[in-house]
């Protein structure tokens, strides 16, 4: 019987039992596989990592001490910090802000209170309203858009939105900034310009 995955690793570690090692010596297929793995392991081992200077470590320790001495930032501070950061956090915040703006200006003849209620009270909804939301096309649109957001990544990036923070941020945007956010949104969701 040919070597199992685990036995190939034991072979690389020199820990394969003598009878199985004898099999490798006599089996062309297992021998070739073992040699290939050994060569890959050698290649992998040869890749060095940099060794920072002693000064780097002094700074590092000091920065860790500083970090653990700092009080935890408030949710609002974390949100504002995330807005200041480029990259995923900003993109995530931009998408959320645009969603709120779209929701605020979206024409709604049938269900006028839906979006504003959702924005003001993101906490648990009363059953009648939840039922209403399920059949609301605007809510479905928002839910679809929000589906594309990687919340874990946003959270890992420090993005934390306090109640009302997004609305306040969106209301402070100029017309040009709103236009730019809309463009970003189209770019991120691959929209067709129908926003």
């Amino acid at each position, binding site marked *: 019987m040919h070597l199992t995955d*685990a036995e190939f690793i034991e072979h690389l570690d020199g820990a394969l039992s003598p009878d199985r090692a004898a099999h490798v010596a006599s089996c062309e297929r297992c021998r070739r596989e073992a040699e290939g793995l050994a060569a890959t392991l050698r290649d992998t081992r040869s890749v*060095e990592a940099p060794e920072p200077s002693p000064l780097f*470590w002094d700074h*590092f*320790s000091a920065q*860790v001490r500083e970090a653990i001495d700092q009080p935890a930032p408030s949710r609002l501070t974390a949100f504002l910090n995330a807005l200041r950061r480029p990259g995923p956090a900003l993109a995530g915040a931009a998408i959320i802000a645009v969603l709120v703006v779209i929701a605020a200006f979206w024409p709604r003849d049938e269900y006028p209170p839906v979006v504003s209620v959702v924005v003001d009270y993101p906490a648990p909804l009363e059953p009648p309203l939840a039922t209403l939301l399920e059949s609301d096309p605007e809510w479905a649109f928002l839910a679809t858009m929000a589906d594309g957001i990687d919340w874990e990544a946003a959270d890992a990036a420090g993005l934390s939105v306090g109640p009302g923070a997004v609305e306040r941020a969106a209301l402070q945007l100029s017309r040009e900034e709103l236009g730019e956010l809309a463009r970003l949104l189209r770019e991120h969701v691959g929209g067709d310009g129908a926003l």
Partner: protein
Amino acid sequence: MLSRAERMWTARAEPDWTVTVVGDDRELARAAVAGDREAFSLLVERHQRTVFQLCYRFVGRQEEARDLAQDVFVRAWKGLRGFKEQSAFSTWLYRIGVNVCLNRVTAKAPRLDAMEPLDEAACADTRAEDPNEGIDRGRRAALVRIAIAKLPPKQRATLVLRVYHELPHERIAEILGSSVGASKANFFHALANLKKLLE
């Protein structure tokens, strides 16, 4: 020679503790849980290189590795009460480190183009070597790093812990919350995938 944190710690500890306390991560962790930041600083000094190297193997950039390593220690500080001493402190720290790194690399596409230029050729003794061989070796190392970045998270973590940190499979299994057999299987598949990617 004692480090700054060690000096401060030993100055605070009873004289007859010094030898045992300074050598014991768990004792320091207990002191840190009680709010002793110098004890935690000593733990940081002891493990910072290992944690930094771990992070570097995942992200390939010193600056990003430093930020991640700091994040690991901040999380460790905040979660110290969760360290129940069922494993070594370093194993617990590795677990945090691997989680932080995997979260980072799975949250965004690997920045292969942004990886720092390789300095293997500069690190190695190349005095008796044909310059072309040095370039080839550097190029090969770059290919290996790119291939490692393409591995699935668990395979990548297993490979990094086994090859670059030389941990036994028993410890890798403990860190990754899997079995020894799964660790060996992950390592096998990591090498097999690398082999294919490098062909």
